[in-house]
């Protein structure tokens, strides 16, 4: 038996947690389960890919990998730009669809709309880029042995470090900044937040921007460590929901912890049961949480 699944699960869990932050924020602040979140992840990855190819075409000498990593700075620059673009895509979706439905005040209609928008976004990617999987870079990576039979690639370590940095930044933003406190206030009680003069529209915009940007980051990492496919984000949707609910809706540390648990459980499942039923493991975890503790680990609201 090898402990490799621990490392793989941790990497997968970090990306799941990053995506789940966006799910838990939109869920608690906008009050609906957003099915498009997975597709924001895919769009983030494809936007990064397209931008990095453009940079590579404009500056052919720039594409060399940095140090031990498989990617060069074009992908980093493209990733940062794509984070902004994915945030704007989420804002555009809100402007075109969700904001108009929100005014009518039925959350469940927004879930239906997001389900439709999700399929449309995903199929558009399939049309534009074809369903065939693709990669950011074809560079081979030599895995570093960490002892106890565990090997990780430099890209995987980079993913873990970046996730930790992004999560820390999110935590500081939510606890120390004005807009972060406003976001938490709206999540607790939107009516009361409005009464004390919090700009709810600005909070909603920030939520979409952050959610989109983090989804893009998760997509880029998933693309770096696994592959890029139009369905990559949609296939992650169930783990994302499981992580957000497991951690407790509205809790950022909870979403990350939930993501890690789901990621570890999935890779343990692959190790001990087999890869065929991988996607069902997140679902089983989700059922267990809903049965035993619907408020999740760190949450208060059922």
């Amino acid at each position, binding site marked *: 038996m090898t402990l490799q699944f621990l490392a793989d699960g941790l990497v997968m869990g970090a990306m799941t947690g990053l995506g789940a932050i966006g799910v838990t924020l939109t869920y608690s602040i906008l009050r609906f389960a957003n099915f498009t979140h997975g597709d924001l992840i895919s769009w983030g990855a494809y936007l990064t890919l397209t931008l990095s190819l453009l940079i590579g075409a404009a500056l052919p000498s720039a594409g060399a990998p940095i140090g031990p990593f498989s990617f060069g700075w074009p992908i980093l620059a493209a990733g940062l730009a794509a984070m902004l673009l994915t945030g704007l895509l989420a804002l555009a979706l809100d402007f075109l669809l969700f904001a108009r439905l929100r005014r009518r005040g039925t959350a469940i209609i927004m879930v239906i709309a997001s389900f439709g928008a999700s399929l449309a976004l995903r*199929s558009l990617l399939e*049309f534009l880029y074809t369903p065939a999987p693709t990669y950011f870079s074809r560079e081979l990576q030599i895995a570093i042995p960490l002892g106890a039979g565990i090997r990780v690639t430099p890209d995987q370590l980079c993913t873990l470090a970046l996730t930790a940095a992004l999560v820390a930044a999110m935590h500081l933003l939510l606890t120390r900044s004005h807009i972060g406190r406003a976001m938490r206030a709206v999540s607790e009680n939107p009516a009361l937040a409005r009464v004390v003069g919090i700009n709810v529209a600005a909070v909603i915009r920030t939520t979409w921007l952050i959610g989109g940007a983090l989804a893009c980051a998760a997509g880029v990492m998933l693309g770096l460590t696994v592959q890029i496919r139009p369905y990559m984000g949609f296939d992650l949707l169930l783990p994302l929901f499981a992580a957000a609910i497991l951690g407790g809706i509205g809790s950022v540390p909870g979403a990350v912890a939930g993501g890690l648990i789901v990621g570890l459980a999935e890779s343990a499942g692959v190790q001990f049961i087999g890869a065929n039923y991988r996607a069902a493991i997140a679902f089983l975890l989700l059922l267990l949480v809903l049965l035993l503790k619907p408020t999740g680990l760190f949450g208060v609201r059922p």
Partner: protein
Amino acid sequence: MILDLVSYGMFFLVTALSYAIICLGLNIQWGQTGLFNVGVAGFVAVGAYTSALLTTPETPGRFGGFELPIAAGWIGAMVAAGLCSAVVGAITLRLRADYLAITTFGIAVAIQLVALNAQGLTGGPFGIGFIPRPFGSLADRPVAFGLARLALIGALTLAVFWALERLARGPWGRVLRAIREDEAAASSLGKNATLYRLQAFMLGGAVMGLAGAVQAHLIGFIAPDNYVPALTFQVWAMLIVGGSGNNRGAVLGAIVVWGLWSLSGLAVSAFFPPGQQARAAALQIVAIGVMLAVILLLRPRGLLGEDKTVSRHVEGAEIGP
């Protein structure tokens, strides 16, 4: 030529009506009760596979093959899908509405995984073939075959429609809508909201299972790829377009959306070179997604919208000040 057109028309109508039955099932859950089911494809799959296992001839290496009559398969499909819905409902109906959405989404994923991987039960990725087709002995006379099938499926759709319409207009349906509109008020009148929801969810799931079985026997072959989230999505589009809460709307929406879907499919095969058709088919789904969003924004009632239903004992009676 005309003969081809007539056969195609009948085939189109039969398929559209099988979707209409799924749509009627969703209408009990969403239209009447406000239960958001994103796992329609899963319940349809349970029905299709159950009926296939019950009615196909024996196959080495696979469970089932009981060669029962088709009707037994259809009844089995309703029972299996209903039971499956009862389990899902029992877990999630007491929680908030969108947890039901997420759980049903998950159950559809899980069911598709079982269909894909449990080779000994479902035939795996290759699916199950040789599912007996109703009036299969007429298959070499296309018009008679088409007419017989249309008559059978038409009668079945009518029967389901009539039964659900009776239920919706009766006291049971009124309780469902009362719970949907104001759960506290309905509970204060002594109605057990969770129990009614569970009944509605089960009944809707059973009807979806029946429709899945009907589709399996129309085509004679099923595979896991038939039961992807896009199916769920099509059925939702049908119900929203037709008018949720209205059984006539559910049937009309199924025919309209299936018509648009078939037309756009014809357009794809006419305007795109063969190599690009699979790619262009993705655009069909984009178009349906945009259509759903536009309908939700501009005409949330759909084409027909929900009728006002009051008890016939109240209708016409003087309601004094």
